């Protein structure tokens, strides 16, 4: 026996979206958004007030979870570097579908004030399917809540399907990712 | 009585040497002294005042011998004991010789390796 079973080297299957319960599913998914507690950048400082007493995101049915396995939402909270991108990809791929990505602040959109840094990722949706962009540097908790409200609407209406696109276009995403991450050192497919 | 006292004195002197002296040769001499003391004691035990030596070569000793001579048995015993004593002393001295050849000393303190 070899080391093969360290990682499952198998491409994720395409997922169908439908079924009898689709309406209820979407309704429930929208109202039960579990956010993976993972701060990629400076913006995660804004998440604390968002989730605690002052702004109380829990009233939207959201809560933080400590493990990607149980999470629905990945928040990219600020600028991404090559180093973080790798981690972000792995976290995202370890989340179970349906899953959503919310990009926080200017940096994921165009690099923000670090646009010319050798190490910053300028455009996130080349690498991960983003469902909601929240602009600002940094967006205040109110803005974040508004963004989540928007995400809920999208899910409710069945339009937040970044997770589907990601699997469908996995090769394209991978190609982009590998351009940035020179030493990949990850399994081909993260589970 | 004098024999008794003398023999016991001899034994005690020998014993003193064995118990106190730190020189191997002196200990062996002590043993020899003890041996002699015991021999004298045995002889004196068999001695009966007024009787003669149990050598039956005189005519008048042939009759009624047992009332005229001293007890012959202790003498016979002592004869054997003397021989044994000589043998022991010989063996002892040879052992002492060998010991001296090993360590070049006769001090008993040097021969205390086997203990406990």
């Amino acid at each position, binding site marked *: 026996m070899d080391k093969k079973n360290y990682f499952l*080297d198998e491409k994720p299957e395409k997922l169908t979206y439908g079924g009898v319960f689709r309406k209820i599913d979407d309704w429930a998914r929208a109202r039960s958004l579990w956010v993976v507690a993972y701060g990629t950048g400076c913006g995660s400082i804004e998440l604390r007030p968002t989730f605690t007493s002052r702004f109380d995101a829990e009233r939207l049915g959201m809560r933080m979870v400590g493990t990607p396995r149980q999470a629905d939402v990945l928040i990219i909270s600020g600028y991404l570097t090559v180093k973080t991108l790798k981690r972000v990809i792995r976290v995202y791929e370890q989340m179970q579908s349906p899953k959503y990505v919310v990009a926080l602040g200017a940096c994921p959109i165009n690099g923000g004030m670090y646009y010319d840094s050798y190490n910053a990722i300028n455009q996130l949706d080349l690498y991960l399917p983003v469902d909601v962009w929240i602009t600002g540097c940094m967006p205040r908790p109110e803005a974040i809540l508004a963004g989540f409200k928007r995400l809920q609407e999208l899910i409710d209406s069945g339009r937040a399907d970044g997770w589907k696109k990601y699997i469908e276009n996995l090769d394209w995403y991978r190609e982009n990712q590998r351009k940035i991450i020179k030493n990949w050192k990850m399994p081909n497919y993260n589970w | 009585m004098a024999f008794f006292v003398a023999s016991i004195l001899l034994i005690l002197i020998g014993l003193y040497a064995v118990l106190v002296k730190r020189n191997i040769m002196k200990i062996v001499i002590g043993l020899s002294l003890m041996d002699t003391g015991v021999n004298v004691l045995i002889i004196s035990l068999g001695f009966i005042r007024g009787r003669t030596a149990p050598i039956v070569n005189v005519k008048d000793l042939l009759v009624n011998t047992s009332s005229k001579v001293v007890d012959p048995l202790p003498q016979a015993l002592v004869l054997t004991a003397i021989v*044994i004593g000589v043998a022991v002393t010989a*063996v002892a001295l040879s*052992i002492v010789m060998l010991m001296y050849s090993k360590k070049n000393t006769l001090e008993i303190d040097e021969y205390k390796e*086997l203990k*406990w």
Partner: protein
Amino acid sequence: MVNPIVIIGITLASAFFIGILQAYAKVWARVIFILTLVFDLLASGIVFYGFLSGELARPISVKIGGFPPPIGINLLVGKAEAAMAVLIFSVAFLGAIHWFVKGLPQPEGKAMVLFLLLSLGATGITFTGDFFNLFVFIEITSIAAYGLVASSRTKGALEAAFKYMVVGSISSTFILLGVVFLYKATGSLNMMDIAGKLLGGISSAVLALITLLILSGLLVELEVFPINGWALDVYQGADPVVVALLAGAAVKAFYLVFLKTAGFLPLSSFFSLALIFGGSTYLAGQFFAWRQRDVRRLFGYSSVAQLGLLILAAGFFLNSALASQSRLMIGAAIVLLIFNHSFAKTSLFLLADNVKGSNVEDWAGTLRGNPLFAFSFTSSVFSIAGIPPMAGFWAKVLLIFAIPRQYSWAVALILIGALAEVVYYFHLYRVASQGEGKEAGGNLFSPFVSSLLLVVSVPMVWGIFSRKLSIPLNGQVLLLLGISLGIYLLGFSRPLQWLGSLATLGYGIYVLLPHFKPDLSGFFLALVLFGGGALLIATYPGSKKLPSTFYPAYLVVVFSMAGVVLSSTWLSLFVFWEVMTWSSFLLINMGEGKKAAWLYAIFSAAGAYAMLGGIYLLPSLRIGVGKVPGLLPAVLISLAFLVKMATAPLHIWARDAYGESAHQFTPLLSGIMSKMGVFGTALVVVYILGVSSNPVFRYFLGWLGVLTAFFMTLLAVFQDDLKKLLAYSSVAQVGYILLGVALGTPLGWSASLYHTVNHFFFKALLFVAAAGIIYRVGTSYLPQMGGLIRRMPLTFFATLLAIISLAGIPPLSGFAGKWLLYSALIEKGWIFITVVAFLASTLAFLYCFKILHSVFLGQLQEENFNVKEVPLTVALVEVLLLLPLIILGAFPRLLLDPIDKVLSSLPGLSPAPIHYGRVMGAVTKLGHWNALFLMVFFAGSFLIALVFFAITSARIRKVGQLDVGYSGEVPRSAEDLHFGYGLYEHFRKAVGWLIYPLVTKVWKGIYEGINALAEMGRRIYTGDVNTYAAYVIALSIIILYIFSGVK
């Protein structure tokens, strides 16, 4: 018929000739030397045979020099004297052979002459009927001995010879004085004559004084404490052959004289003299040896102790106030002791000659790969330590049971000394048997022959003495034991041995079939035989690495357990118990444990000797109801069983013995052998304590049981070695069983017996699985395993079921025991014990998880990638053992009904008060429990849930073992991710103080305290001639003052 004088004459003559011949024809000198010894041996043998066959009815009296006995010197040869001569010449012959093989000391002619003279002197001492002649022979012996000791001419030898000579001279001075005074007092030197005159009534006070003079000379030669320093020096310094001849033969001749002379003393003063000197010499020898690091001196201490025992026995033997039956028994014991000690010591000293270096540590590994050496050493050590089947065992038993009740302190003394003996002998044994195999010298003929003599004598001795003591040893079991030993002959091929063992066990089951009755013995017999058989199957893998004695020893353990449970008297139980203990000792010693087997030996021996003491105190040897006064016998007897159950605070042997014994043996040790303790305790409770009487003692036992369970569980939680963890767990579970037995109610007993069987199933399964795992993985250290479920699914499943059973979680069989036990406890009202028991069983979950997690779950480590499922035989046994777990889980009555029958066969007990209903299941006054329902419910709803899940679940993908959420990182290796080390470190912070090794420290303290005392004690042997001489003088004066009765 050979005239005894011929022996002496020929020997003397050839000694003379050798002295002359060796200068001219060395070879002829040697030939004459050996021929003389052979002749002597044959001649004395013929005389002895004459006495045995009845051809000679009366002692031979040989007159010398033509004078009839009272006046002339005569030899007086009876049965004892002839036997002694045979003994002396056999030892001399063996020693001579050894000398020839290894090379004689130079100059060899002198050595041969002295050697002949020494054996001649010893024979003369034995034969002579005349006191002065005795003195002469003593001197011949002594001078020859001084010379022989010095003959190797090393520093030590010379020093020893000198000391010997000084002390010996003083002693012979005493003897000579005594002889002469004797002559003066009685007018005779003939022993028979004096004895006759004594009867005629000569003033006894003076005679006693004189005799004491002779005796104090003899006591020097008999090496009594504290005037035996010279002897130890001789044993340490002299040529082993000489030592063998001295310790094995010459001293025994002195002992015979001692016996003869003792009759001249008033009875009471001889009796107390023998008891005081015998006892103190015995104890001093046994305990001083603890600190001894020089092996030959160690043997010396042991010899001294054995002589002490002989002197002690002599005190009883010559005590005419004792019943003649007991005196006969003691006489037999003395004969056995002499025989046993002579040959065993000869063998040991000659073996010591084969080992380079004199320290205990130099013996390391000598038993490995040297079968002859191992055989000789083992049988000799077993003989001396009085371990069955050797003759020394019967000597001890005979001696003890012949001692009348008012001297029970002497019995205690003998047993304590025997225990001390086990401590140092088995320390040596353990050092010798472990470590790297080491080349020992090849000069093994003589030790082998002498130990062969010991072994060959075994069947005869057993035959005679088991009848003499009227111990009904089960013949079938003995036969099976014999067959088991025969398995050794198949040692050239392990598979054949394995198959042979299985066949033997099958035959054993067939033979013992009539004993499977619904009573306590039948119950345990079934457990022993079927359990032992099942576990035997799993021993095959890896058995090639085991010595070929493994299978015989294994079978002996099994069949001796059968013997234990089938015993009808306590003494036969003891015999089989000892066989079981020591054969299992051998098995444990086959593991890699450093101290395990030694500790096991000490504790087992302590228990066994306590049991022997307890049996000694019993009014009747039969196992049956009878009034037993006092608690002491029960306490003493149960000590042995508590040791075997490893009940705290007697548990400290268990961890290492279980953990480090051969993996193939541990299941038997834990699953069945510990249950022998249960069996024994059950016997004690039913037949000695009484089920309903002695509530305080039983309450105490209950606390012992539950505290054992609690603390051992706690220790298991923090244990990182798989087998040691299981060991603690096993001990803890047996603690529960003890608790149930202590309850003494039908419900409690029912719980205990149920748990006994069930514990066998799951713990044997766990140990078998552990053996398989260790066989495959190569370590038993838990943090190095993990993730093996991916490689050993069957073993995981089996272990899981066993663990669920162990934890007592309902649908499996383990819960029944728990439920019964708690019901019994609450019914009895032992509240506090109940609470602790509950808590302990909760703690058990901690280590249960630890086993499963550390071995099977978590990450599979890289070095275990190529691990395969356990071998087929192991897997087979796993399946065999897990089936009952499930079946009993649903139908506990399959076991509870037979248990009810067993209970109703016992006096004072009745079937457990459980009523069985269809809906409520088992109902007691207290509660109810429906096993079948729970099983069906659990299995059914589990299946339903599973099916529902399979239908409704999301798309499930089985991922790789490193595909875990790891903060976005990619784990580099399985090692990084596995949490195996220090699993319960946080818990240790909370309760760590509870597992402070107090008990271990106390035992260690006791051991070290005794060591310190022994160290202090043995300092009296200063090695200084003056001191030794002073001791002799002082002691003689004391003896003369105290025992003569002269004021």
